[in-house]
């Protein structure tokens, strides 16, 4: 319990409080703390001929993680995730704004539309994209029919297809937190900005964006972090041509049977999350 928690509540949580917290604490210990500890320990171990983890101290895995090849893959994964996040903000913000400003009845309906895709398995939706993007697929046929392109589109199994897949998968995670911020925004503040002579652009920049910042930050965290580690989309829509960090980690546990190296990649990956979370927390606190 934090200091402020104690002072606010005026007393420590009683037995009942701890009992209510217990399932959560057990869950955290069993599925977060213990696995992370195992990951950290494995990352300093070695493997035997069979691929079993041998408990002898070694930093070989970390030396490999920080070699140019894997640093390059980390950088590429971050690049894709950053581009995905940027596109998600550009596409997601107006949607979230419109939903937040809609009448109550419409708001519920529009929100439902954003969430409907989750009713179908993620993999099935990704396969649906294959039929849309393939060169004799829906998109290519449509664009050829209305004569925007002359030849069949070679879109599938390219980096563009990967970004399309990532944006599609994570867009709702950007829309929902921004919506939550935008809904709470007091319209009177915008009117006041207009009254005081702000143009639409300046109102947006100096009133709307700062007030929806918590939502934007939450969205960035929800999109950027998982997008770095995504491997199913790069395999299915990118044709597994260029490895992302998620693919490399997955390979260590199956094909290469090198769990210590996979664990070391996982540890570095997790530390990256922690650092990016920390930076965002600090910035949003400052804002």
């Amino acid at each position, binding site marked *: 319990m934090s200091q402020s928690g104690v002072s606010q509540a005026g007393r420590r949580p009683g037995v009942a409080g701890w009992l209510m917290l217990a399932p959560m604490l057990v869950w955290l210990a069993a599925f977060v703390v213990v696995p992370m500890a195992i990951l950290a320990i494995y990352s300093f171990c070695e493997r035997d001929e069979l691929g079993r983890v041998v408990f002898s101290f070694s930093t070989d895995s970390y030396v490999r993680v920080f070699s140019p090849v894997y640093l*390059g893959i980390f950088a590429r994964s971050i690049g894709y995730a950053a581009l995905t996040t940027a596109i998600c903000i550009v596409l997601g913000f107006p949607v979230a704004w419109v939903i937040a400003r809609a009448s109550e009845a419409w708001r519920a309906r529009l929100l439902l539309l954003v969430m409907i895709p989750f009713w179908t398995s993620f993999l099935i939706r990704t396969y649906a994209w294959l039929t849309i993007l393939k060169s004799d697929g829906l998109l290519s046929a449509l664009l050829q029919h209305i004569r925007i392109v002359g030849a069949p589109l070679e879109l599938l199994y390219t980096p563009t297809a990967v970004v399309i897949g990532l944006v599609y998968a994570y867009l709702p995670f950007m829309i929902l937190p921004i919506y939550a911020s935008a809904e709470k925004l007091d319209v009177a503040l915008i009117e006041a900005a207009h009254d005081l002579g702000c143009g639409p652009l300046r109102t947006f920049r100096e009133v709307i964006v700062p007030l929806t910042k918590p939502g934007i930050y939450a969205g960035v965290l929800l999109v950027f972090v998982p997008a770095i580690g995504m491997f199913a989309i790069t395999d299915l829509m990118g044709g*597994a041509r260029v490895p992302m960090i998620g693919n490399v980690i997955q390979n260590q546990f*199956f094909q290469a049977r090198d769990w210590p190296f996979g664990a070391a990649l996982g540890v570095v990956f997790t530390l990256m999350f922690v650092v990016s979370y920390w930076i965002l927390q600090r910035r949003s606190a400052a804002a």
Partner: protein
Amino acid sequence: MKIIRLLTAVSFLGFVSGTRAAELNLFAWSEYVPQTVIDGFTKETKIKVNYETFASGEEMLAKMLAGGASYDLVQPPDYIAEVLIRNKLLTPIDAKKLPNLKNVAPEFLGMPHDPEQKFTVPFMIGTVGIVVNTDVVKEPIRGYKDVFQPKFKNRIVVVNDNRELVSWVLVTLGLDQNDITPANLAKVKPVLAEWIKLVKVFDSDSPKTALLSGEVDLGVVWSGEAARLYEEDKKFAYILPEEGAHPFVDVMAIPANAENVDAAHKFLDYILRPEVSKLISDEFPYTNPNLEARKLLSEEQLENPASYPKIENYDTFRDIGKAATLIDQLVTDLKSAQ
């Protein structure tokens, strides 16, 4: 009233544990054992089959080593079976309980992974070979060298299996596919670097998809995938690369910690019956090692060049131990470099 309910619960528990003996835990490749075969076995023997699946031999090995689950029957590929035998993780098979083992072609018994033929029963045999869409590619394709040409850039699909990729280059260079040493990999590197740049899709699960949709015109894929393509459309020709193609043998084996060894033997003998083995071939058109079952197949099935290619070399993959890491490193490096 309460006591009666409690008693019912207890007797129910007893009933559950009593039937446990009549269960078989099967751990096999996804899409390899037809449901009709499993249902037929349960109907005849009253033994319930729990079919758990894996997607790669390495995944299977990892789960077996991790313990926790007890399997009665597993389906490793040849080189994983070799590892399991060497580490004493399998129970010997009692050939006396398998009268139908006589149906298996002799060339698939006593293979290098199980030279004494004590621990495994061959399930299906496959090869890795070249598929050509002959409607588009008119020139003759004989081997890897004909596939990996700059003019076919972005027209190729290959299985997403690093060891396969490396083995193709090794045989092209006239080296042994199982001799994974830093020196040999150094020779592989420049060739593989060029090949990887030409590939449009790496897909192990369903390489036929990209060929069917016309996204690519050439492929190096599992023979079962090629056989299904041929069934779909005769324009998909299957060619065993002239540089050398390796067959793979998927076997059935009983783990050392199996609880129901008897049921495992019953299941093995059941699927070795010609009429049952035929059902497997109908659904998964790999090379069936069961000669009696082959007699039941249609002319068309037997003439499928991907199901029954002329296999001249029986050099299968062998276990390479830690060298798997070297391969992974090399291919990751090359894929990232492009």
